[in-house]
């Protein structure tokens, strides 16, 4: 079979398999909408929990889809207040929400007509029942009965019931409600009846009526209650249904700001009502005063994923003490963390952001990254200046937050002098506990950034802050039965865990690496993961991929010596890297470097040998990385090292059989490359998409692992040590297999356009097939039995030698 035809067939089959939807569904994970950029600014810093649904994430419509305030509980509290706070909440809740209408009827008629109160004990003993029995307030009871009649028509009773709209009954209820409204003696009950009537009309799709009823029955009512914004939202919804979008948006904006109840619902209403975002002025023209304009602008700001200083400035100009302003400022900081801090940090350390999977979801080319930094830098500086200015004016509700946010912005700009000055100013003000925490974190970041070299003295200086941050990060963590730590992604404790992780992984670890301190790099990474959920382990991978044997030994000596500074002791104690991991790895490192004496010496000390279910000296016609069916041979790293050591000695001492010993050494070397059967003697993970390519910045081990160059040299030595043409043919065949691995295969992502990639791939296949050894094999050993068998066993060989 032709190599190209085979490749084409494989490609078609692969493409067909890839086309099957379940493969697509099964491939890859999703982005974490709360952890996709580097962040150090607490989204809860403004302490405005009522705006939690609107904290910043550009990966979801809302940060949290749950209403922050429970409507029912708020209504219950209003009823408690109605009783003069004489009835406990639980009794009010049971009476209003749970008691069946028939029992409330019985109570009503007992009070009105003195009929026997045949009520269940649980109801007659209820505090609210007692209240009504004492006060004989038939108006209130009558309203509750009416509301219970309305309820099934405006609320879903059970999720497995259809949505019902019995228009005729709803109309009757409206009529009844209007009569009761007229008869009501207080503003409170006129408001309550008005609300129910508007509600009925709305859900009965009589939108004009809903609007009219609101205007006639609710609009002028002075009573303070959440039923005011709830009624207003119903009118807004009716206007939306009638396609009066601007009026609808205006009222939803008002309802949003009147109360935290149904704030998510009102925001949805505003969002849907705004048909033309670009035509803001026409929506704002409906606002009656500066405050209303500011409130509506704040909702536009919530919709905007881009930094939007102009809107913030407008809001400040119109109404500086706007309640939501602090939340908007925190959102802007988070936006800049996503769009400025994260690309800036990725640029500083060559995209090695291990703390979050930023790299994998938002990969910018260097040109795109520079462009983003350039676009965002001046607006960020303007934002910092603006915050500084309004902090001094002290018209906002939280000037300290403005200073702190400005300091954080200055930190992002690497303007540490300004950051320091702003932190000082913030520190002189009265800070809430959250702002104190944020101050400490921003201060720590600035302190680390200003330090040129992180030495022992500096580490001692920042240790209390690191410990503090660690404690905050571990608050609220929860373990599963398997001991795995979990965090609810958008909770406040989860953020502090991420702050600690980001600090250790993406700030300190990178600084240590830049200083050439591999041990501290590793410990910082391991500490960043010590509170994390199970998953990708960067620290152990860093150890296994970056450390050579001297470095690994040095690390082991450091950890076992226990001569730690308090800072080091803290890192070691709170770390995923354990001494046993390092001890095991030292042996592996020596194996990788072919130092079998040292490998044996280290591996012998291990309390247990890891069983590798492979034969490292297997002689196969083809590359195979998985265990062959029926293969029962096992080995250990120690056994392998001992055998390799012995073979090297035999190759020197047993000259008569040196060729065989050298060949076996070569097999032992080849089988621990990427292409070999026993790769797991020297590696811990093997990706199917690697190979035929040496990664950039490859370590000497990686270079050997992917090129099999040393194995090739030993097959060559074996060939030269033998006079047997059959054996020589076999050696040459193996040399060819090694040599092919040294032809670098082009990778799609490395080229700007597909045409270049395609041309280079064609060239690659040509070079791959025109291996220097295959022609030699044919010309010099073409008559050997090995060659003839190889032609039958390896179909590619026929292609290679045919070219």
């Amino acid at each position, binding site marked *: 079979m032709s190599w190209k035809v085979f490749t084409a067939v494989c490609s078609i089959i692969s493409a*067909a398999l*890839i*086309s*099957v*939807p*379940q493969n*697509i*569904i099964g491939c890859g994970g999703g982005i974490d909408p709360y952890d996709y950029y580097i962040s150090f600014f607490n989204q809860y810093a403004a302490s405005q929990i009522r705006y939690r649904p609107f904290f910043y994430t*550009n990966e979801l*419509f809302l940060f949290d889809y*749950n209403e922050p305030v429970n409507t029912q509980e708020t209504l219950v509290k209003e009823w408690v207040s109605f009783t003069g706070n004489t009835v406990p909440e639980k009794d009010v809740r049971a009476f209003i929400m749970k008691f069946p209408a028939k029992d409330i009827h019985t109570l009503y008629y007992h009070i009105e007509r003195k009929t026997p109160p045949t009520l269940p004990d649980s109801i007659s003993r209820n505090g609210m029942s007692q209240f009504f029995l004492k006060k004989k307030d038939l108006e209130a009871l009558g309203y509750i009965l009416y509301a219970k009649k309305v309820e099934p028509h405006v609320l*879903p009773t059970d*999720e*497995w*019931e*259809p*949505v*019902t*709209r019995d228009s005729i009954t709803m109309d009757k209820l409206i009529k009844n409600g209007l009569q009761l409204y007229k008869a009501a003696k207080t503003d409170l009950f006129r408001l309550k009846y008005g609300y129910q009537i508007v509600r009925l009309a709305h859900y009965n*799709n009589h939108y004009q009526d809903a609007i009219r009823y609101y205007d006639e029955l609710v609009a002028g009512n002075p009573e303070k209650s959440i039923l005011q914004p709830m009624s207003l939202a119903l009118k807004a919804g009716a206007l939306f249904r009638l396609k009066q979008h601007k009026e609808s948006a205006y009222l939803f904006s008002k309802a949003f700001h009147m109360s935290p109840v149904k704030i998510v619902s009102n925001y949805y209403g505003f*969002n849907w009502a705004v048909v033309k*975002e670009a035509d803001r002025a026409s929506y704002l023209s409906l606002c009656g005063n500066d405050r209303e304009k500011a409130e509506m602008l704040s909702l536009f700001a919530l*919709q*905007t*994923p*881009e930094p939007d200083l102009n809107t913030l400035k407008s809001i400040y100009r119109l109404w500086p003490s706007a309640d939501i302003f602090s939340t908007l400022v925190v959102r802007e900081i988070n936006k800049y963390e996503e769009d400025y801090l994260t690309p800036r940090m990725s640029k500083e350390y060559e995209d090695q952001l291990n703390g979050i999977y930023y790299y994998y979801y*938002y*990969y910018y080319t260097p040109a*795109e990254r520079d462009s983003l930094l350039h676009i965002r830098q001046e607006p960020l500086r303007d934002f910092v200046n603006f915050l500084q200015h309004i902090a001094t004016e002290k018209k906002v509700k939280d000037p300290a937050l403005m200073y702190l946010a400005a300091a954080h912005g200055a930190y992002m700009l690497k303007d540490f002098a300004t950051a320091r000055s702003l932190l000082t100013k913030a520190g002189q003000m009265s800070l809430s506990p959250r702002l104190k925490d944020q101050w400490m974190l921003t201060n720590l970041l600035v302190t680390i950034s200003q330090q040129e070299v992180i030495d022992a003295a500096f580490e001692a200086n920042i240790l209390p802050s690191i410990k503090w941050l660690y404690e905050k990060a571990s608050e609220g963590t929860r373990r599963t039965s398997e001991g795995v730590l979990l965090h609810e992604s958008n909770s406040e404790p989860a953020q502090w865990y991420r702050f600690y992780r980001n600090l250790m992984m993406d700030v300190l670890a990178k600084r240590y690496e830049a200083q050439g301190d591999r041990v501290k790099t590793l410990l910082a990474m391991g500490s960043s993961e010590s509170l994390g959920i199970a998953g990708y382990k960067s620290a152990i991978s860093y150890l296994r991929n970056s450390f050579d044997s001297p470095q690994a030994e040095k690390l082991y000596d450091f950890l076992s010596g226990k001569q730690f500074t308090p800072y080091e002791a803290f890192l070691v104690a709170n770390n995923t890297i354990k001494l046993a991991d390092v001890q095991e790895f030292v042996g592996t490192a020596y194996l990788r470097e072919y130092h079998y004496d040292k490998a044996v010496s280290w591996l012998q000390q291990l309390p247990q040998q890891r069983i590798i279910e492979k034969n490292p000296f297997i002689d196969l016609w083809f590359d195979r990385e998985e265990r062959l069916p029926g293969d029962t041979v096992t080995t250990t790293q120690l056994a392998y090292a001992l055998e390799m050591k012995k073979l090297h000695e035999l190759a020197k001492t047993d000259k008569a059989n040196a060729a065989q010993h050298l060949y076996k050494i070569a097999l032992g070397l080849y089988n621990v490359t990427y292409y070999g059967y026993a790769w797991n003697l020297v590696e811990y993970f093997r990706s199917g998409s690697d190979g035929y390519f040496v990664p950039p910045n490859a370590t000497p081990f990686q270079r050997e692992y992917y090129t099999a160059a040393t194995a090739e040299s030993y097959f060559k030595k074996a060939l030269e040590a033998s006079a047997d043409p059959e054996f020589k043919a076999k050696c040459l065949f193996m040399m060819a297999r090694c040599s092919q691995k040294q032809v670098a295969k082009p990778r799609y992502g490395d080229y700007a356009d597909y045409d270049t990639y395609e041309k280079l791939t064609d060239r690659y296949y040509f070079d791959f097939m025109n291996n220097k050894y295959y022609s030699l094999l044919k010309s010099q050993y073409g008559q050997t039995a090995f060659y003839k068998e190889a032609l039958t066993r390896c179909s590619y060989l026929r292609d290679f030698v045919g070219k």
Partner: protein
Amino acid sequence: MNKSPAIKILAAIIIVCIIGSCRQHTRHVEPAFYYWKSQFQLSGFERLRLDSLQVSTLYVKLFDVVWDELAQRASPVAKLVVRDTGFLKNINIIPTVFITNEVFYKLDSTAIRVLARNVTSLIKKYQQLYRLTTFKEVQMDCDWTTTTRRKYFYFLEEIKREYSEPELSATIRLHQVKYTGSAGIPPVQKGLLMCYNMGTLQQSDAVNSIISVKEFQQYAGAIDTYPLPLDIGLPLFDWYVLFRDNKYAGLFMSIKPSLLSRFRQTDKNLFEVIEDTLVDGRRLKVGDRLRYENSNIETVQAVASLLNKKLKASRLRVVLYHCDSVTLSKYPSHELESIYRSMQHY
């Protein structure tokens, strides 16, 4: 030499058989539509269209079943509210329930039995609520996978057990027809073959993942041997597929022409974002690409023709997705008629 009369007679019989087998057969095609919105209220235009196409059957989605992560259970959402009960009483309604595949990942067999009971109960409540005639067929719609196949099939069995009177049908995707080994055959009385979403939506170099003759031909070979009787579903919708850094990043059901004119058109159906833009509150960045996909009438007709060759049933229901005035206004009536007509002879 005279040929024997017997041979002549035999030859004549053979010729007659051949001619007979080449004769076209007439098929009774029942026009139908899917109604996929959660408020049932047809506009005047929609009524006219259904009437002019002589649509006698409407697949009406009553509700979806999704996995509620917060409550840790399967819950109905987007429950239908009917504003126009009169129309529903005068047409053959096939209630449809869409269930996400995730539901079947999460549920065990006990919960599946409960779900089946809840689903059938809610369907029956709709029938009672709106006083509709007894349903002759109910349809379950779920894009099951190899992993969820066993549980989904169990669910279907339970539906049948709970609600035995109507015929039970299920939607079948093209890949499930081709790969019956892994997908299995659902335990229903008939299937509705969804001849859309046949390409790989998330592949950046796909041309049109909604409908394509080339894609369809990859699956067509298995249709005539599928062991269930099949009705046919064909698309009438369009969308824009967003790619960022060559990775799939979402869908837009529509983009206003005024916004689209700000993008650079790089090919017939490809657009490149050249300045950061907000569309429906979502940020598009410079360099993002949009691929416009639609259900071009020629392609739909071509696929219908290919299907026609594969199907030998003398009665066939052809269902267009979906009944919506914006969608319908893009197709003149005669084009939609041609789809139904193209399957009337085989």
